[in-house]
């Protein structure tokens, strides 16, 4: 009973202390973290974390992120709007992905409640932290990667903790390599794990450092090229010296032996614990020695070692700008709009011609003026109809099949044209992330439940806006070219206007059915890329692809247009041409 009596008093004291000790809710600062440990890549999505202090009023609220960009007529703003319900006393944390196009101006973050700005923060990006590629290291030791600055291509290292890993795989788009050294899987949620794995399958590069007595995170097990063995201490590692040509400092070296899985590649240099393999479109490497630990941390061969891991960024099979250029030639007229205008003009002229014959002549003159007066609002209405109908959205989805996975890395490229400028608002394909690459005018990205909408106003001088979104589509195509045979399995999908590209030549295939099929490749049917691009069958597909890049690919590539409806940019009331082009890297046998 004594305790029971004491508790209400204690509770009251605690509440009093907490209340007095807390600053007023809106006086607390808005917390904003941009990029990976502050590192960003221009034109690439980066994660942004916004900590909104508890507001003192409730209502409809928004977090608004204003990122500057350069438009054709000067600075424009790419705004991202996240709606939420403000509840007094409840702080919120938002994790968003934005694309920075101009770091000369800070990222402005505002919190609006019921239409009023209640919080404001401007976050400048350190120019020294802007790179062309980022190297993310999940490592307790925050040193050793500064040597990367010596490599060409403005590589910026960033040491991050688990909570900084994004929940959208596209947020890794500017990252060259993620290095996993010290990762506590218990501090990651499912979305973060899935984002990292999806990124690897969609083309990301992962390096896992196997450490003594610390097993690699279990969620990575499916993508690891090797299993780890018992750690050993060696006086020297001659394989490492041989591979990178730089003598090692005196040992001892603690090495975790790697047991490669089927399909994994090893350097074949005895004690050099290293294995790698391709996972989808990406690659996972594993090493059994720790570059952060002495004596390797002082090794002169570190630069060559990292250079091999980072490599040089390869050319992407698809190019958004190239596709946008191909789309722009496809603007089509609106025949119904022309009919409406034609009929309206003819009716007006006929009415005037008839009325001007009325007797007495004054009546005709006055009646003609009255008709002109009535025709003015009609003209405005017809103009509105014509403007609405002349808005076009041409788009293509370029899907690269990730080998041995059920997905494809997909780049949606849309060109919205509003003749003589004006407003547009369209829905981004489900699950895709908009990448505002070139802003013709200010645009706004609005989250609305599961949907993302992009809206903007195009100036009369630049009435076209190219929109690019990155995502993943479900596709499961595979195939092999063996001698004069192509064996392909498209799963449930059907391919139209298909062609095989290999060794600088193109083989037109036409339509391919769902499931497995086998096709004989006749030697005399291979044509040059120029001939393929000009053929009526393949012109539509090849106009949107940089054939030169595809021809340089080391493996045969099946190209074709996927039949059926797929997720795409949706502009309510506007139906434009759309296509989904699938590229399947094939294996070459025999």
């Amino acid at each position: 009973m004594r305790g029971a009596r004491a508790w209400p008093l204690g509770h009251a004291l605690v509440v009093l202390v907490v209340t007095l000790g807390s600053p007023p809710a809106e006086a607390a600062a808005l917390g904003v973290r941009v990029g990976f440990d502050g590192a960003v890549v221009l034109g690439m999505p980066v994660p942004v974390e916004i900590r909104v202090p508890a507001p003192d009023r409730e209502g409809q609220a928004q977090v608004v992120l204003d990122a500057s960009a350069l438009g054709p007529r000067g600075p424009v703003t790419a705004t991202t709007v996240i709606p939420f319900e403000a509840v007094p006393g409840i702080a919120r944390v938002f994790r968003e992905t934005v694309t920075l196009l101009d770091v000369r101006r800070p990222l402005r973050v505002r919190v609006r409640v019921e239409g009023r700005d209640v919080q404001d923060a401007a976050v400048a990006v350190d120019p020294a932290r802007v790179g062309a590629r980022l190297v993310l290291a999940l490592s307790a030791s925050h040193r050793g990667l500064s040597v990367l600055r010596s490599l060409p291509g403005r590589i910026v290292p960033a040491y991050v903790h688990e909570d900084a890993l994004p929940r959208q795989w596209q947020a890794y788009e500017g990252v060259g390599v993620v290095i996993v050294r010290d990762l506590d899987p218990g501090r990651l949620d499912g979305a973060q794990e899935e984002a990292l794995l999806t990124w690897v399958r969609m083309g990301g590069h992962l390096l896992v450092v196997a450490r003594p007595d610390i097993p690699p995170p279990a969620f990575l097990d499916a993508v690891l090229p090797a299993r780890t063995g018992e750690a050993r201490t060696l006086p020297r590692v001659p394989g490492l010296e041989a591979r990178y040509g730089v003598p090692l400092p005196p040992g001892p070296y603690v090495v975790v032996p790697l047991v490669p899985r089927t399909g994994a590649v090893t350097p074949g240099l005895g004690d050099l614990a290293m294995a790698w393999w391709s996972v989808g479109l990406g690659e996972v490497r594993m090493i059994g020695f720790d570059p952060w630990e002495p004596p390797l941390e002082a090794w002169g061969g570190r630069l060559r070692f990292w250079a091999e891991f980072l490599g040089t960024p390869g050319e992407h099979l698809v190019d958004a700008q190239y596709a946008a250029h191909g789309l722009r030639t496809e603007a089509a007229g609106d025949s119904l709009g022309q009919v409406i205008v034609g009929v309206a003009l003819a009716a007006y002229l006929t009415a005037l011609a008839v009325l001007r014959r009325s007797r007495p002549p004054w009546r005709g003159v006055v009646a003609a003026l009255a008709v002109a007066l009535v025709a003015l609002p009609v003209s405005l209405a017809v103009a509105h109809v014509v403007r609405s109908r002349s808005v076009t959205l041409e788009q293509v989805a370029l899907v690269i099949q990730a080998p041995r996975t059920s997905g494809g890395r997909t780049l949606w490229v849309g060109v919205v044209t509003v003749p003589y400028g004006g407003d547009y608002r369209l829905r981004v394909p489900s699950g895709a992330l908009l990448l505002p690459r070139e802003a013709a005018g200010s645009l706004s990205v609005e989250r609305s439940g599961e949907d993302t909408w992009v809206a903007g106003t195009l100036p009369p001088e630049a009435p076209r806006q190219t929109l690019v979104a990155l995502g993943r589509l479900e596709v499961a195509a595979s195939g092999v070219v063996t001698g004069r045979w192509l064996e392909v399995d498209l799963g449930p999908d059907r391919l139209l206007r298909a062609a095989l590209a290999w060794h600088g030549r193109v083989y037109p295939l036409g339509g391919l059915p769902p499931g497995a099929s086998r096709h004989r490749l006749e030697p005399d049917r291979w044509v040059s890329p120029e001939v393929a691009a000009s053929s009526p069958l393949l012109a539509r597909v090849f106009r949107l692809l940089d054939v030169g890049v595809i021809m340089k690919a080391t493996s045969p590539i099946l190209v074709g247009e996927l039949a059926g409806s797929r997720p795409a940019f949706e502009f309510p009331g506007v139906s434009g041409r759309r296509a989904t082009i699938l590229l399947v890297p094939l294996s070459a046998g025999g």
Partner: protein
Amino acid sequence: MSSGEAVLSPVLRGDLRARARSRKVVAIEVFLLSVLAFLVFLGLPPELSQLERSREAGLGAALATVQLVLVTYFTSACAAQEISVEGEKSAVDLLWAPFSPGAIVVGKSLTSLVTPVYWLLLGLPIVVLAAAIRREPASSVLAVLGVTVAVAWAVAQWGLASSVLVESELSRTVLHWAILLGVFVVTLALPASLRWINPIVAVGAAAGGAAPTGAFVLYGLLGGLGCAAANSALRRWGGP
């Protein structure tokens, strides 16, 4: 006589009556509006892949130019009697009626003002359609109409003067065309700083959003001088 007719100058009243019933004027109106409508139809998006509103060579400026040239020509041709409107008396003929030269010139001048305004009002729905499709501001449309009226009226005043000064029909036509060429073509040879005097340049600037105050005032003054010249010539014909 109604109160409305009492307000109107008798010369203006007579000319407007004649023009209201003239088949030639109706034909001019139908032709003018048909040309404008045709241009608007051709200019529907996407017209020749030109979707940007260009200030230099947009179809909006082209429409304004064609309207300017046609309205100016027809207004001045009627005033110079190159196009003789059925039932409309010339300024010289009116001297035999009990009108002073000043009243005749004012009446004819007002006719040359009302006529293009009426034609432009009839063409306004077509022009507004083109402007609204291109999101051109109303101020640009009004500026274009203002310059067009000023130029048409000014050239028409010199046409009126030539109708009084020159008796020969052929010589009058040649003089009228010389005035038109001078206004529309010769002014293009002016230094760049004075190029705004050219009506096509002025109307293009107006269509692009500029305020063509200089051109408006200049052609207003030129029109006034034309009026004065016509009045002086009529007085020489022996009016009171």
